[in-house]
């Protein structure tokens, strides 16, 4: 089963490839080489907002999100990942009961 994460990056404009690369480096930094090999995909990337939808398997979700939380620097400058929403269903990233306006 996959988890889909809607995340954005707070630092500077970067390309999709660099975005994925930085996630891999952050995982490597916290959990080492073997964990850096966990499979994940950038499903969609929006360079204007530096926001992406990433999917990762259920088994690796905690480690993956943990390393996003602990990522503090990009090229020596402070950075942060904001996780907007997480769901096992891709469709629920569009809207859920929390954002639903009656």
């Amino acid at each position, binding site marked *: 089963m996959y988890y889909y994460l809607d995340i954005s990056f707070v630092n500077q404009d970067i390309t999709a490839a660099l975005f994925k690369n930085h996630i891999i480096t952050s995982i490597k930094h916290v959990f080492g080489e073997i964990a850096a090999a966990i499979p994940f995909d950038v499903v969609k990337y929006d360079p204007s907002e530096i926001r992406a939808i990433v999917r990762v398997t259920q088994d690796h979700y905690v480690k993956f999100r943990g390393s996003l939380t602990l*990522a*503090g620097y990009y090229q020596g400058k*402070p950075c942060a990942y904001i*996780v907007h929403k997480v769901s096992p269903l891709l469709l629920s990233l569009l809207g859920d009961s929390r954002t639903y306006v009656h």
Partner: protein
Amino acid sequence: MESVKGYFDYNVTDKCISNNFENIAKQLYDFGYHTIAINQTIDESLLEESISEGKKKKKIERQDIVPSPIDAKIIKGCDKLKILNRLTISFTTQDIINRIIKSPNYRKYHIIAAQPESQQAFQFTCTNFEADIFTFNPSTKPNYKMQRKLYYLLVERGVHFEIMYGPAIEDSTKRKNIIATAHMYHSFGKSRNIIISSGITNSFLIRNPYDVINLGLLFGLSDGQAKDAIQNNGRNVYMHGSTVLEFVCWKLY
């Protein structure tokens, strides 16, 4: 008694106050932290310096050794944000504690945290000292030996153990020490009475409460404990802090 709501963050360092506090408070509020505490630390080594200076210049007014709590203004747009004051005492011997407790400023703080730096201080914290939070210095390894018996003694008295995540983002050595301490709490006390706080120094280190809960899993807590660590246990700390305060007042009058 006033109620406290939302997620808790008991460790916003006083460095943030001078450095764009309004922005930080707003960010915390938007993330759902509705109760935050501004942390002020007194270090034993700094106090000793002031004592020796005092001896040299005897006639200079003796200042209160406890700094007066920072009074944060209510910030526009976050009216429900409750800002508490927290005092962290870092000490190696218990002598200093008596002097601190006598200080009039001491009672103005809502929450008291103990940070023992030696075996003797650790024993004292476990048996006698009325603290609300038990904390540690993430930049060094603990100088004391944890025991299951002492851990449970603290749990029984309603003391909560703090793990901060801010330093873990900044620096890899601190991260190592924090994870090691968190796992020590797991092996000695099954991670009971844990609170997770930020310990932030700038706005880039603020994390979403859900991220923090997820991080709790890496610190060796279970799903429920991780959620309690920033929600229910935070409330317990507040209750513990205010009841101890009331008890002190009742004793005085």
